[in-house]
């Protein structure tokens, strides 16, 4: 993967996600950071991105609204969106996947969790 956008209002959360991705081997990837959904949407509209990782609870624009915008845009509809949230349970995960999220993970995350979730995307990138 060449470019990943990480949207979370917490710098600590963005750092943890970035570190987990580096541990699972994404060392050559460029990470673009956004503090809310609006900033993330601007970033994914501006350039080709391979993956969007977003929190749910964010000020200005939340992750659910960001997901709706991405999946409603013909140019962005194929962009995989991974939601990483503290406010998720099975019901919320099902709802987000039905809305088009690639996957949903609960905080706290670790490299093993991210590696499992991203395995299909990483394999298809290798092909």
């Amino acid at each position, binding site marked *: 993967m060449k470019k990943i956008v990480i949207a979370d*209002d*917490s*710098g*600590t*959360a963005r*750092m*943890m996600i970035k570190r987990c991705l580096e541990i699972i081997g994404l060392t050559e990837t460029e990470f673009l950071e956004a503090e809310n959904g609006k900033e993330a949407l601007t970033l994914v509209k501006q350039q080709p991105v391979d993956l969007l990782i977003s929190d749910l*609870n964010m*000020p200005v624009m939340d992750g659910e609204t960001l997901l709706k915008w991405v999946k409603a845009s013909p140019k962005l509809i194929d962009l995989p969106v991974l939601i990483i*949230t*503290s*406010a*998720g*349970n*099975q*019901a*919320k995960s099902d709802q987000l996947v039905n809305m088009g999220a690639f996957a949903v993970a*609960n*905080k*706290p995350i*670790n490299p093993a969790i991210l590696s499992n979730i991203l395995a299909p995307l990483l394999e298809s990138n290798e092909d």
Partner: protein
Amino acid sequence: MEELKSLVHSKVTETLEETLENMAFISIEECSKEEASELEQDFLGVNLLVTEPALFEIHLNISKELLFQLAENMYAMDRDELDEQLIKDLLAEILNTSAGLFMTAILPPEKHFTLGLPELTDGISNNNDDAELKFYYIAEDCPLTVEIMAADTDSLKSLFNN
């Protein structure tokens, strides 16, 4: 009240433990109010509102010293490189993560819940030593406290009956 206190205490301990071990490889121990106050350290506080399925607030206070230790571990940075903003952001993320784990632990999987955004306070958050649902911990010789405040304890209690 004692039954509710014991249930909440056990879930708070479990979720705070999981959060801190996962984020910074630091473990916590339960302690008494007296043991925590003997350590006399400066605190930073944060609170977060749970709005659904019941309305209540969670307050987390962590000693500044412990926050610096956590940040040193997580960011692999020296203390003089760490600023107050980073420490506050870390505190907010600890509460955000713990609160989500707490709600997931007490509710059935099909039940929705909604969390507000963490709000930092200048010093200690809700310094009420006589609160019924206030729990004390020690990590790396530093104190931390969690308090849960509900306007209506019956609605909080009902969450544990799911």
